[in-house]
């Protein structure tokens, strides 16, 4: 299935070639989870803070177990804030 994978702020460097505006299309199997994708792209675990699936926050358990569906958007940020 296809999902959109986005990495922002200091994590942008871990996006593969071909990405645009911090996003790339990924073709994944039904076995993939947020955690497995984070591992696949060599993103340091301590830099992973906000993990959003279609804009909704995933906690640690959901990152391990949540299964994707076609068209999902996975977006990840390191610790950031502003105002």
């Amino acid at each position, binding site marked *: 299935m296809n999902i959109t994978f986005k990495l*922002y*702020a200091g994590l942008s460097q871990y996006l593969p070639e071909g990405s645009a505006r*911090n996003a790339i299309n990924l073709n994944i199997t039904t076995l993939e989870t947020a955690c497995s994708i984070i591992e696949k792209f060599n993103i340091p675990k301590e830099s992973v803070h906000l993990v959003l699936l279609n804009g*909704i926050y995933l*906690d640690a358990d959901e990152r391990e177990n949540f299964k994707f569906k076609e068209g999902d958007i996975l977006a990840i940020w390191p*610790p950031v*804030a*502003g105002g």
Partner: protein
Amino acid sequence: MAWTRNVLRVNLTSGSITHESLNMQWANDYLGQRGLATKYLSEEIDPKCDALSPENKMIMTTGPLTGTMASTAGRYSVVTKSPLTGAIACSNSGGYIGNEMKNAGWDMVIFEGKSPHPVYLYIENDKAELLSAEKLWGKSAWATDELLHSIHQDPLLRVAVVGRAAEKGCLFSAIVNDLHRAAGRSGVGTVMASKNLKAVAIRGTLGVGSISDPAKFFKATEDGKKILAENAVTGEGLPALGTQVLMNIINEVGALPTRNHQEVQFEGASEISGEAMLEIRKGDGKANLTTNGACFGCTIACQRISTVDKNHFSVKDKPEYHGNSGGLEFENAWSLGTDCGIDDLDAITFANFLCNEDAVDPISLGATIAAAMELFEEGVITVEDTGGMELRFGSAEALIWATEVTVKGEGFGLELGKGSKRLCEKYARPEISMTVKGQEFPAYDPRGIQGMGLAYATSNRGACHLRGYTVASEIMGIPEKTDPLVTDGKPALVKAFQDATAVVDSAGICVFTTFAWSLEDIAPQIDAACEGDWNAERCLEVGERIWNMERDFNLAAGLTGKDDTLPKRLLKDVAKSGPATGKANDLHKMLPEYYELRGWSPEGVPTDATRSRLGL
């Protein structure tokens, strides 16, 4: 230097300048800056007075940590009654002038009355004099700053100044200091101009003194700086991308107000984001962001220093704008960009330059232009009103035009300068104004971040994110993650943020430290600097006292619990995309519990028991 214990009182009507001792009982109860100056204002003016009359006073004020070696300790505030809202105004700024005021030996400067002719206040340590500003009146904030440096031949002179907009009565005029920093919100610059006070120029060389326990202070501030340096947000995130890192996040979570809050996600967000500011432009081969910068004593350094592509239509024939200048914060990129449906990074960067140049609050300006654009799209405002300009969403040309006429106070800009509420009322469409208590919203849609709805509705200075920034918890997980789409627990969360922020704003440090510091980290710094014992518990009580005092000021000014509300659009019209799809803000589920937690009556009035508990 903790408190200098010195207050400078400037009567602009008579021209007299007097010195007096700081009321230390009040300093013990209200700490400094926001809290202490609001206490002075509450005691000295009738809250019902016309904000633009000589009866209103304006206080420039520092906190006990301002000017010390504590990180971010360059903050100062301007406290007065707001002409935009009729409520208390307290606008906070960084840069260097707060430190300079403290180094000149003053905790605060109180301005009263109205000068018969334009003047500026020049302070050099204990010498203070009112000088003629006849040659400065009519000039922009930047031109005035340059002239004052030339007149006094002192490159280290620090200047706070109003621009042309304030002189022409723009109700959301700011006071700009150090060219690119601003006491931005609620029209504090309008009050300053109404007093014929063009600028305050300060040189302070007295240095730091009177720290209560210097050895303890060195240790406490060193510990604090270590925490900021090692924290991923204050040590890495903010220096790299500034507040603009939020543009993509807030869009992703479906809480980015778009086209005057008609939508909650913007298709052009990534084009004007912090990440986009790092990308090389096609036009001139440069990135929007040149580098970051810092205010006095700051070890975070979130400031943006930017350029506009010199080939861009907005500056093509204006070489004076081709160099580095103050870049976009998230709020400004949102108001001038997203809220107006504009994804042209150069255009909104230039509009932001213009706001700095003439000291205008870009949040209120962008939000007012957005309201005008909606009125234009509906055919309520026409080209006859604007003099030919089509004020359409997405038009960068319209944004630049509207910004230029407003900051200069020309033509239709005089209408825009009255703010969104008055503009929409004039055209008999008050429901289109996205304001609380007359002040325009910042960049978080309360349909997608429920707690912010309560924070906006109850903010003592009208719609504002900096009175209780629950976004930190609801979106970023600081100090802990809460669900932005539920109302449970939000009244307590909002109260906790409001009270803690009131203390930080009264101490002389920047609220951004709180992404890494709790009051347990801040209290030891205050405790070592000031007389008496200051622990986190006492700080929080002071914060609650300040919040209730501000509430009392507003009630005395004529506001009521009925003003603690949101525009119908946010309470009735549901979000159409993103995680909040189908949701409006459920303020009614939060407000009664909030009043109860505050110790207020069901009408939103502090009870006698609450006033007694807080010593009000």
